């Protein structure tokens, strides 16, 4: 079985601030990490590898610095790493990104593609589902568990807000995965020792199955107009009172704030 895992290098948003004037992320000095949901996806792939001997290929699109994240994936147990890196990919929105990734996937042998649910920098949750559409694959999002059945099908738990759907999928498919469901393993010391002895294949646009006009900024219909930090809401108060007391309390609060 061949599994492709899509991973993205993102700034560690627990340590990031937003420029109050420009409204953009201040990335200077902020460490880069493997996107947590993608790491969860890699963990699922590695568990399938542990249980049934799959071949795991991690793919990413990004600047050459993403190399270190792919080395981390190799040290965790991935077999092969490919980085799409080319100026022609620059400025890509989710559509152009998923299109480029689909061009790479078409050149690879695969049975399952696993992506993280969403990246912590963009929070769109679009790239995985769009990739499935480009490739004409069935997709299951918000995956919390997946096992290979004896008949070769996958049994997948899809986590909805208030329920879990158990689905059996036959043939090629794409899954998007939740980090919270897959506690990712650490890199092993021997994996780390080998990580830089392996090759991270770096491919440009000419090496994948795509039309150049659909890549990068030119292929991106989405334009970010503005981003800004959300104002923090004050913590709420809980009062356990009778309905009559509640009315009085609310009226007084509204008067206090000069609303009525």
């Amino acid at each position, binding site marked *: 079985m061949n599994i492709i895992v899509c991973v993205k290098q993102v700034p560690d948003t627990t340590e990031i601030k937003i420029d109050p004037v420009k409204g953009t992320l201040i990335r200077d000095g902020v460490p880069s990490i493997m996107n947590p949901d993608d790491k969860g996806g890699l963990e699922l792939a590695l568990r399938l590898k542990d249980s049934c001997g799959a071949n795991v290929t991690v793919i990413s699109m990004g600047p050459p610095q993403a190399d270190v994240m792919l080395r981390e994936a190799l040290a965790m147990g991935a077999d092969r790493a490919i980085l799409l890196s080319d100026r022609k990919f620059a400025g890509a929105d989710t559509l152009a990104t998923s299109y480029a990734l689909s061009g790479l996937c078409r050149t690879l042998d695969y049975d399952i593609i696993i992506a993280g649910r969403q990246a912590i920098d963009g929070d769109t949750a679009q790239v995985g589902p769009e990739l499935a559409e480009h490739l004409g694959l069935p997709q299951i999002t918000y995956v919390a568990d997946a096992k290979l059945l004896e008949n070769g099908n996958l049994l997948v738990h899809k986590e909805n807000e208030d329920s879990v759907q158990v689905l059996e999928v036959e043939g090629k498919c794409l899954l998007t995965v939740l980090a919270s469901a897959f506690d990712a393993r*650490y890199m*092993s*010391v*021997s994996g*780390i020792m080998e990580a*830089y002895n392996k090759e991270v294949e770096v491919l440009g646009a000419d090496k994948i199955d795509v039309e150049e006009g659909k890549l990068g900024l030119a292929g991106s219909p989405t334009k970010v107009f503005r981003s800004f930090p959300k104002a923090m809401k004050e913590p709420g108060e809980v009062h356990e009172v009778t309905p009559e007391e509640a009315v009085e309390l609310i009226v007084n609060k509204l008067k206090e704030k000069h609303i009525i």
Partner: protein
Amino acid sequence: MDFSYSKTEQLFLQMIRSFAENEVKPLAAEVDEQERFPLETVEKMGKLGIMGIPVPKQYGGAGGTVQMYIMAVEELSRVCATTGVVLSAHTSLCMAPILEHGTEEQKMKYLPKLASGEWIGAFGLTEPNAGTDAAMQQTTAVDAGDKWILNGSKIFITNASYANVFIVMAMTDKSKGTKGISAFIVERGMPGFSIGKKELKMGIRGSATCELIFENCEVPKENLLGAEGKGFGIAMKTLDGGRIGIASQALGIAQGAMDETVKYTKERKQFGRAIAKFQNTQFQMADLKTKVEAARLLVRSAAWKKDNGIPYSADAAMAKLFAAETAMEVTTKAVQFHGGYGYTREYPVERMMRDAKITEIYEGTSEVQRMVIAGHLFK
């Protein structure tokens, strides 16, 4: 000179720091409070290859460097000095002498199980009357044809009650003094070998420090480590390496106390401002930070020499002396910066100060380190 970490070391640092933060730190207070050996952590370290970092792959290790091993001891000790010394004693005092002085059969028999963490290692040199004066060994080993018979006892043995393999020094010929000392590989369960009382300690309270008792203990002939009469040299060389590990432990404790103090002094307000804003805090912390970095360079330099086959005995002694005294100074001042809270178990600096003290004592006291350094200086 290149002071930067290699790409492989950077990846390793990322892993070990995350492991220490997520798996080791949450247990540190409990391990200390309950004087409990962190066996579950050792099992996790075994699975990840941390228990066999500098052991070559052909013996089941990760094939890493001494530099990586000491990075691990530092990062673990930064959050839990007990876990740091478990790894240090296992690696430097048990696996290293087997690797450096063992026969091929001994290496194949012991290293794979030790490097995988299935077995834990320990080292027995110290006796009630042979501490700093390690040559005064009373434990004896008598050649009984097809086996050695050991009699005597060892004290203050790190990892003892959980260890499976012990490197033990014993007198095979009292008339020859230090040249009559030999080293043996003793396994838990060998007839006549038992673990004695557990010490109740000031710090590193989770590490199992016990007595070893040999009563007509039968050790197979092939378990002599190195040649007969070479045990004292093996012990001294082992301690040279061990000192780099303990220096890293001290460095980790110092760094952990620095981290806690920076965080606390930025949060704690007195006289209307954070105490980190006072120049007294800033100047004292600047001095401590300088010492911690100086200790780190000494430790890394000693490890670099060991990795590159350059003699490092004096370097290891200097690294341990300076790092241990720095750890004691940093942790004592860290408690002072925390004031009354620092004296309570609510904050980890209280534990760190207790943990730091042992680094000035074991694997050669600070006085022994000065003897070693002076010995190299005036030879």
